[in-house]
């Protein structure tokens, strides 16, 4: 006679749900590549114009990326935090 144990089904479901959550959260780590793409290729930003508050593009672009990548890192931290 088949005996379906409700607790074992519940436990397996919980394990599978955790694995699904873990796979989803791993995707957030891909965001961490963005600062790299934004700054490692100076051909994209090595120009003097447009200027901002007297700063040439080359200089203020990189400074803005400091802020952007800090925000990205924080977002990934919150998104991947184990409950």
């Amino acid at each position, binding site marked *: 006679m088949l005996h379906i144990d409700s607790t074992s089904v519940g436990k397996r479901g919980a394990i599978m749900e955790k694995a699904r959550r873990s796979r989803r959260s791993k995707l957030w780590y891909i965001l961490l590549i963005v*600062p790299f793409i934004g700054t490692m290729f100076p051909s994209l930003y*090595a120009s003097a114009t447009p200027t901002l508050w007297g700063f040439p593009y*080359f200089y203020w672009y990189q400074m803005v990326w*400091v802020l952007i*990548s800090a925000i990205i890192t924080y977002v*990934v*931290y919150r998104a991947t935090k184990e409950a």
Partner: protein
Amino acid sequence: MNWTALIVFIVFFLLVTVLGFLSARWRRGDLNHLNEWGLAGRKFGTVITWFLLGGDLYTAYTFIAIPALLYGSGAIGFFGVPYTIVIYPFVFLVMPRLWSVAKKHGYITASDFMKGRYGSSTLALAVALTGIIATMPYIALQLVGIQVVIQAMGLTGTGFMGDLPLIIAFAILAAYTYTSGLRAPASIAIVKDLMIYITIIVMIIVVPARLGGFGHIFAAAQTALPNTFMLSPKAFSAYGTLAFGSALALFLYPHAITGTLSASSRGVIKRNAALLPAYSLLLAFITLLGYMAISAGIHTKDTSAVVPLLILKELPSWFAGFAFAAIAIGALVPAAIMSIAAANLFTRNIYKEYFRPAATPAEESKVAKIVSLVVKLGALFFIVVLPKSYAINLQLLGGVWILQTLPPVVIGLFTRWFHRYGLLLGWLAGMITGTTMAVLNHFKGSVFALHFGSTVVPAYAAVWALIVNLVVAVIVTAVLRAAKVGAGEDKTVEADYEVDAATT
């Protein structure tokens, strides 16, 4: 002789000296244990770690040398900014794993981890030696930072009298590091970082105001450096690889690893990965001091004098004393942490491993304290006796060398596919490649131009060396795996890399 500046300088210096000695009592622990002396018992929370790592990574040498580079060489001197941008995602991803496995197994150094992961004491030795020799010139260069500000205050002199202030400063540093271990630079870092933030914030408000605004400053720089003010296409690969290679290398340095492992949880490291970029923004403005100096009319052949000269010219003497104290203290913090880190490596991975496997914790701690002293003395000797260029050249090589420990340490945190002997030979190949490139360059710079037929690609020598390192490691690993050569015992399991602090 600038008496006002000197008096203010001495007051702050004495303040941190007292702090250094008192910190032995902070978050009490048995300082006769290497874990407590060398890692402060892994007790530092988010805020302390932020100050510690900030003080550790942004050194006096940074504040002197980077603006000097911008002043003399233009846009390429800005590489410190993208460098410190890409570090933190890397830290976020990699360092918590190192913290976890170190916590689980009681590792104090990267080399301990090598022993546990690969079962190879040769690989562990290679990593330990690389760490020690890469750190030594870095300590010496912090002394250059102190020397520069001392001279700027008018304390010039020749021979022994000229070096006396530096010797005194270092003797004091040595004393409180001996008694308090990592707690000393941690507590002093708080003061130092606050002083640096105040100094820079004041400078970026006052100096541009006096010079007519940032637009004017950039215009002056462009006039003075017409060819290098904007990055030329020929320099793109050099710029990108300098930033990238330096970023990968930074957290492989023993002092960065020590700072990281002293954290109290994984979360502390991850939060700091999001918070430490504040220092990167600071660094961007510090770098721009180089252009401010041009705009202020500073003319000097010795570019390391640029920042002190700018401070003296544009700020009142009492504030100059404060700023110089900030820089000098900014040398003491990393010098202390670096000497502790080098001592940890020597004690654990050379002394205990090869000479006294039965060493007690008390003996370990004693040896580390002495080694830390010896290391500082060595650095002092280097700066006082030898020309500055020796330390600078060795530091250049140090950066190239330390990056070669990336495959075993960083890749080893994620996979054990690489064979220990493949990693060892890769490391060796990388060391030889990088050193040869630096020598061929006559140590004039860390960028090496490789010729591929008619294309010339200038790139950071450390990155070229790393590529060679990885290629060799892959090939040798593949061969050894096929030949089923013994790969040593892995004492770690996957779960170890996710271990966190107990949440009680």
